[in-house]
């Protein structure tokens, strides 16, 4: 669980990891190694204020170099919100996230549809399953050129789609995508804020953290 200056939902991601039964390990933006973690979650927030472009500065943080290298060796990486933006800026995922079509920050309970349950982070969901998680972002509009989008669609790399309304004008209602090997997933909504009914709109987000534990289990055992 990486913390950049300006990360906000890092503690919440750590809580979700705990709820899922794993041990969260705090990584600092200028750490020189990944402390042997089994998976990395790049949290939401406004790293470095998102001043130039969401994720544009964080992408150059030392720890990101390590994450990119490890991802290429198959380390599961989850980018949530700002984390998704950072993974795109870092080139781990294609496309970019722009200012919401409505021009405002949008915080709402959003229905999501699982389009690909074959990734390291979604194997606990049924394909086509829908659940409600918070989406809360200023720059959540996913864009990529035509060919990239077609490729994502054809290869089934659109992992989540917005259902019942598109909150930010994303192409094809895309809410989350993954790398060709399905180990790196990025999404704008916040599964870590849907881990119990008391503080979130549902508890269904926990499945993403459970999924990665399943995905890692064979390796571990």
């Amino acid at each position, binding site marked *: 669980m990486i913390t950049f*200056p300006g990360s906000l939902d890092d503690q919440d991601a750590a809580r979700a990891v705990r709820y899922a039964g794993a041990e969260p390990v705090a990584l600092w933006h200028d750490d020189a190694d990944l402390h042997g973690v089994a998976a990395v979650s790049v949290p939401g927030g406004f790293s470095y204020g998102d001043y130039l472009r969401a994720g544009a500065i964080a992408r150059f943080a030392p720890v990101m170099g390590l994450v990119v290298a490890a991802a290429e060796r198959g380390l599961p990486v989850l980018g949530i919100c700002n984390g998704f933006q950072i993974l795109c800026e870092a080139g781990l995922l294609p496309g970019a996230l722009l200012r919401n079509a409505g021009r405002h920050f*949008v*915080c709402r309970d959003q229905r999501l549809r699982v389009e690909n349950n074959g990734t390291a982070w979604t194997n606990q969901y049924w394909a086509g399953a829908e659940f409600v998680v918070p989406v809360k972002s200023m720059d959540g509009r996913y864009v990529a050129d035509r060919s990239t989008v077609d490729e994502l669609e054809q290869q089934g790399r659109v992992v989540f789609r917005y259902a019942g309304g598109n909150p930010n004008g994303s192409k094809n209602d895309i809410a989350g995508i993954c790398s060709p090997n399905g180990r790196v997933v990025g999404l704008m909504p916040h599964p870590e804020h849907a881990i119990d009914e008391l503080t979130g709109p549902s508890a269904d987000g926990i499945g993403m953290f459970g999924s990665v534990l399943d995905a890692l289990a064979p390796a571990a055992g």
Partner: protein
Amino acid sequence: MPVTAVSVDTVEHALSTPDIAQPHRELGLADDEYARIREILGRRPTEAELAMYSVMWSEHCSYKSSKVHLRYFGETTTDEMRAAMLAGIGENAGVVDIGDGWAVTFKVESHNHPSYVEPYQGAATGIGGIVRDILAMGARPLAVMDPLRFGAAEAADTRRVLPGVVAGIAGYGNCLGLPNIGGEVVFDQSYQGNPLVNALCVGAMRVDDLHLAHASGTGNKVILFGARTGLDGIGGVSVLASDTFTGEEGGTGRKKLPSVQVGDPFTEKVLIECCLELFAQGLVVGIQDLGGAGLSCATSELASAGDGGMRIELDRVPLRAAGMTPAEILSSESQERMCAIVEPSDVDAFMAVCAKWDVTATEIGEVTEGDRLVVTWHGETVVDVPPRTVAHEGPVYERPVERPADQDDVQGDVAELARPSTSDELRFTVLRMAASPNLCSRRWVTEQYDRYVRGGTVLAQPSDAGMIRVDEQTGRGVALSCDGNGRYVRLDPYAGAQLALAEAYRNVAVSGARPVAVTNCLNFGSPEDPGVMWQFQQAVRGLADGCAALGIPVTGGNVSFYNQTGTTAILPTPVVGVLGVIEDVARRIPTGFDMTANGHVLLLLGETHEEFGGSEWAHVVHGHLGGLPPKVDLAREQALGTVLVAAAADGLVSAAHDLSDGGLAQALVEACLIGDTGCRVTLDPDADRFVQLFSESAGRAVVAVPRASVPAFTELCATHEVPVRELGVVEATWGTLEIEGVATFPLDELRAAWESTLPALFGG
């Protein structure tokens, strides 16, 4: 102007040039105030001293017009009320012991004038400022709220101001990672040209980690950390709180500068984490945030609260702009700065933490023997003053107080307003009210605020109160609500202030939390107007007496005068914030009915009288403001609160919503739409339908109770003598709100009316 060679006005120079003319009036100092400064110093003040006194003796910092009235809060606070209070009025923010070893601190402050000049930055820095106040108490900020007032909803300028203010609060608060858990949006034409942007922050710490701002321990170092100091809002404080917006900057030849600051939420976020780490490592003896009046305020307050004097080397302050004069540096309102007192042996560790967070930190002076605050500039003394005379012994005014001549006419103006009587008219009125700017859904605003970050938000908009979990193990949490109705206060300031208190108290209680403390932001017109001063005095007395009656103390607050356009004052607007405690947030009561409440019995608690003075109905339908506001009975409010809190603890209720603006009709509309579940209600056949639906009598709430719990609940009400009437039943099947004999509203129709108003006004 030249970057170098700023000739500085030293103490020595002041002594040798006793009678050169000084621009004290331009700085907002009256002749007698200026005379008193000369008397205190035994000479003319230097330019830097003059800048310092002028900002610190401004209305905004010195409370010179309100002090004599605010004392009444202290006089009416009993030891019993004080029991749970760890810090009260006078500190950066009040602190309350909420149990399990937790202390909670909260405060509301105004940033009205800057938000009119530059809505986005004005509102953003309002959030930044209140958050630093909470941080300066040693607490981790946990959430914010934003009570807002704007001119008429349709007015062109409102279309400029509101979106900017909301985006500013969102931009800053969201970037800090603080959930926004509530607030207000009120439209009234009296706020045209003078919006009210109040901001509340709540924070928590372990009881023993409380940090009060003081500088003790001779030899301890004074460290300034955070953002660099620039030419922001120079002279801002004295000017912002006066009736003009542009600043004079301390007698130098520099062109006028905007008295608006630009916020840097990222720097503040890092500053927060940095401070919390410094607290955790015990590296801080005393700490003060730099808000209005910047270093003038921080140094003089730290010094006068401590046991020694202080020496500051001003030339060490890291600057953002070239050629700044000592006066400018002392009064700069650059944001995102803090000032700490640190033991010499801890300075290295302190600097290490700042380095980790990439926070600029500079040792600028130290605590000294004696009782003077001495500021030097490249070795020459530019300030040498007794700090108390700057920070606490400013002027105090007994402003003339006089009941406005037209007060009787306003109260006597009980025009016979045409009322809806047929079912069709009532039906139409329900929809019209639900769609009116003050009652419609706030979603267009609140959707721009992150309410989830930190993962502890249990209730947020559109609930009656915001609620956050403070202790993840025990589930202990706090609830907050801010309320204020300027129309009520205009009609009767004393009762109006108590009605604001009563509503906030009720909002907290319906959420299941026990109200324990009060903060307030008193937004009024010019203190030089005896009529306004009367409104102020009455409101303060009403609020203080009300708190005494409810047995909960006012722990802090803020006064904002000169809220007027031309010479017309705004509606007198005390905004009251009430803090409540709940042992286990899992026991909270939601505001809306939902599926799980299907078949639960709806009960109406409290008594309904024919009370339409200052009502939303009179405002929306007739544009009328006159008569007397609803009667307040705090004993009944307390009884109602006791019942709701007990019922929540025993899990007797599935939903509760208080009745306020718009009366029963609006409360039912909201409860149905919030939980997206309908209900069927029957009005009392022996009473007037219009009065039952739209009267704004205080001390009422509607609750949903599982059939099995009804006996226990009504028993509870009986014990506390809270009148109960069976109103109807939650009805999940039909998706309608049915008011028997009046109308049946499909929820979709209600939602369309309730949801479309703000988007239509301010864009999709």
